[in-house]
């Protein structure tokens, strides 16, 4: 094609994207003004530290609003919120959580303000709460990782169910739902796919249960165990650092998403709304893939070394069931695998 035809094709494609269904970002002048009057906001998040500085300075440059950050794991944030609610001293305005069922609990305490994110209007309904108490801003999957010195590509398990095979006795590692939000989501997903029979088989295989993703990943890296399930962002980080990990996308892979919510008693509600809207803009969503998360719009790419979301057979957990069952799941898991 000639150069001219190239650019016509490009323009048409861009136009099509804008018209057909890419994200449209509108942030009303009114909201911006009110947010700037508030001047600051507090954000609790699991975003990797490497991105935090980038986000807070970009937001400040654009709108002049100061963002104070508390960074922790999903479970730590949930715990901090729970304790603050207890003490009736909630400091957060915007909160990111990795386990949407926690929002449900907080909702019962009327702690979350429903907010319909305009910039997320084109997102599929499954990635938003029906009552607008949370909106998903990034996604993760739970791949199988293995130590290449101990396991060849052919031998590596191709599904979670294959982990039940007795040939993996003493060779597996997994993370406990007792200590982490994404870990809980994964446990629920695993149960939905393989049932308690799969968990019992893992127990029979003497699976090493780590307190968190770092422990189970490290077991594979050091060779203490051969195979583990990992969280995609952590696998990405390890691969970027040069770890020689084998990666398998299971034939049915559990997927999860991180969600953003606004607190009901937020001291800076308008800044909070603006900030959440901004999170769904191109400038933010396009940075997710380079740090290891999947953006919620496929146009913004996917982490290097991992397949695109729509090329995988994704399994999302049943959130309502998770809310009902999570205490029982934890108890039975603990009794089966950790005691």
């Amino acid at each position, binding site marked *: 094609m000639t150069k001219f035809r190239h650019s016509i094709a490009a323009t048409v494609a861009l136009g099509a994207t804008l018209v057909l269904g890419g994200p449209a970002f509108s942030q009303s002048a009114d909201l911006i003004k009110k947010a700037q009057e508030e001047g600051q906001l507090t954000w609790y998040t699991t975003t990797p530290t490497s991105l935090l500085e980038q986000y807070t300075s970009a937001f400040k440059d654009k709108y002049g609003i100061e963002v104070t950050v508390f960074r922790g794991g999903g479970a730590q944030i949930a*715990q901090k919120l729970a304790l603050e609610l207890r003490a009736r001293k909630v400091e957060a305005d915007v909160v990111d959580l990795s386990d949407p069922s926690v929002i449900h609990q907080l909702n019962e305490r009327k702690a979350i303000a429903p907010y319909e994110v305009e910039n997320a209007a084109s997102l599929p309904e499954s990635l938003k709460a029906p009552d607008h108490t949370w909106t998903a801003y990034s996604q993760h999957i739970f791949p199988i990782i293995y130590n290449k010195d101990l396991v060849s590509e052919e031998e590596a398990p191709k599904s979670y169910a294959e982990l039940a095979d007795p040939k993996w006795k003493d060779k597996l590692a997994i993370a406990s739902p007792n200590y982490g939000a994404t870990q809980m989501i994964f446990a629920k997903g695993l149960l939905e796919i393989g049932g308690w029979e799969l968990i019992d088989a893992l127990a029979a295989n003497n699976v090493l249960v780590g307190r968190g993703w770092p422990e189970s990943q490290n077991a594979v890296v050091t060779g203490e165990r051969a195979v583990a399930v990992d969280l995609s962002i952590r696998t990405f980080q390890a691969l970027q650092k040069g770890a020689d990990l084998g990666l398998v996308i299971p034939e049915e892979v559990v997927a999860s998403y991180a969600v953003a919510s606004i607190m009901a008693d937020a001291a800076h509600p308008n800044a909070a709304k603006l900030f959440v809207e901004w999170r769904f803009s191109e400038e933010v969503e396009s940075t997710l893939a380079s740090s290891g998360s999947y953006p919620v719009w496929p146009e913004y790419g996917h982490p290097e070394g991992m397949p695109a979301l729509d090329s995988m057979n994704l399994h999302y957990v049943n959130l309502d069931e998770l809310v009902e069952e999570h205490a029982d799941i934890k108890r039975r898991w603990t009794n089966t695998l950790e005691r």
Partner: protein
Amino acid sequence: MTETAITDTRSSATRFAAQMPRSLPGYILLFAILAGTVLYPMYWLAIGSFRTEWGDWTLEHYREVFTPFYLQVMANTMLYAAATVAIAVPLGGSLAWLVARTDMPGRGVVKALVTITFVMPPLFHALAFVFLFQPQAGIVNNLLEPVIGLRPFNIFSFEGMVIATAFGLFPQAFLLIEAALRGVDPSLEEAASASGASQLRILRTVVLPLVTPAILTSVVLGLIEVLAVFGPPAVIGVPAKIFVMSSQVYIELTSAPPRIEFSAALAVLFLQIAILLLVLQEVLLRRRSYVTIIGKGFRPRLTRLRGWRWCAIGYCTLIVLIGLVIPTLILMLVSVSKVWAGGLSFDNFTLQYYLEAIRGDARAATGLTNTLLLAFATLAATLAVGLPVAWIVTRQRGLGAKVLRFVAFLPFSIPAVIFTVGVILAFINPPVVLYGTLAIILVCYFGRFLPLAVQPLSDSLRQIDGSLEEAARVVGSGSVRTMIWIVMPLLKFAVFSTSVMIFVACVREIVSIALLYSPGTETLMMTAMIYWEEGQIQLTAAIVVFILFAVAVFYGISRLVGSRSGIRG
């Protein structure tokens, strides 16, 4: 009318105290501080165990505590304490006898080395033993396999946990029993010998009964301490799926969401058992004070070992090797190994982990800053409150002094885990909310370590005759002035050695910080624990080695200053 001569037979201290105006506002302030940091947490512990996390009343926690798993946890804890003490006290006692009562060559060296071992927390022994005796990658197993074809050791067992803890605990028994043995009046033995008793008989009928209180005290103190030990249960017990109070509470509190009220119920139940030990301790410690006051300046009668002395030296060497030398060397070795079980070689040598700890993800730097902040703040607080409390406790007799003494020493008898759960509950609920800050850790350390300060300060104050203060009073000096210009200079050395002790206690502390920390408020010991949990073995070892040397240096300085001043340690 007859004149009756009145003789005042009270000691000068008592006369002085009776004349002292009771500084009521000062006393109330002290009591308020102690009540807030000791009684308030215990109140919350009791209340909290009957509440859900949202504040509703419930018995569900107690219902769960009485299920087989948790009853097993309590049984494990008691068995663990009993087994550890059953090894540590004879170990410490036998070494104490060899050092204090025989002519074994090198006994001064043995004493110094055991004292250094005292400074190593049980966590260090646990880590070192894991490196050595782990089934898969343990260094000793690796060495033995080519030779005998077996990998015989598995540290991840009840026995492993007990032995690691015993080696951490035996120095305490050693120090207590050695001091008591030194204090035995030799004229008693001389008399027995002159009457024809054999060495063995003298040992059995004269010496042993006199040091029995010290032995019993070390048993009781040892039991209370093992109830609270965290390192070996976390590092050895959990992988072996053997859970005791401290590790189980840690699990409950670090789950998502943390089960704080449930831990309170667990703690309250366990406290009942600890209270029995408290009563035992009260009864025994009252007796102990008799023995140690006698005997200053006597040269004890030494048993001549003759041919047995090589056995004795061998025994002591073995204990010191296992208890101090080998763990230290292994920790150092692991901290500089590229591949931790890779053995000693130039290829495997690296300083990267030390560099990473210094420059890496800032957790170690944060840990160091927090450790120092907390240690100095705790030191300042315990001295500022401890001195007046010690003064009141030694110089005054009334009910007020007795109450103050009881509250100040209460944390000695409450296992650290239990006390910490109380602190958590007290300060995450309104009105005083300190959760997530260094302040909550400081409050916990203060409550736990105040008795550690008041004890030696009271002992030193008791040695200072009240007539000095009385003389000052007679010429018109007020109590505060007397305190500053007369009492404190005399206490200089006691204050110094107490300061070092508190500082070291803060730096070594692991059980309270494990339950209280949040990201940003961890100490160096906790950073080591976090690295361990993440599987970063060499980083763990690097931090642990650093702490070990820092603490040994501090302790060494304090001994040096102490000996220069002529104060016996």
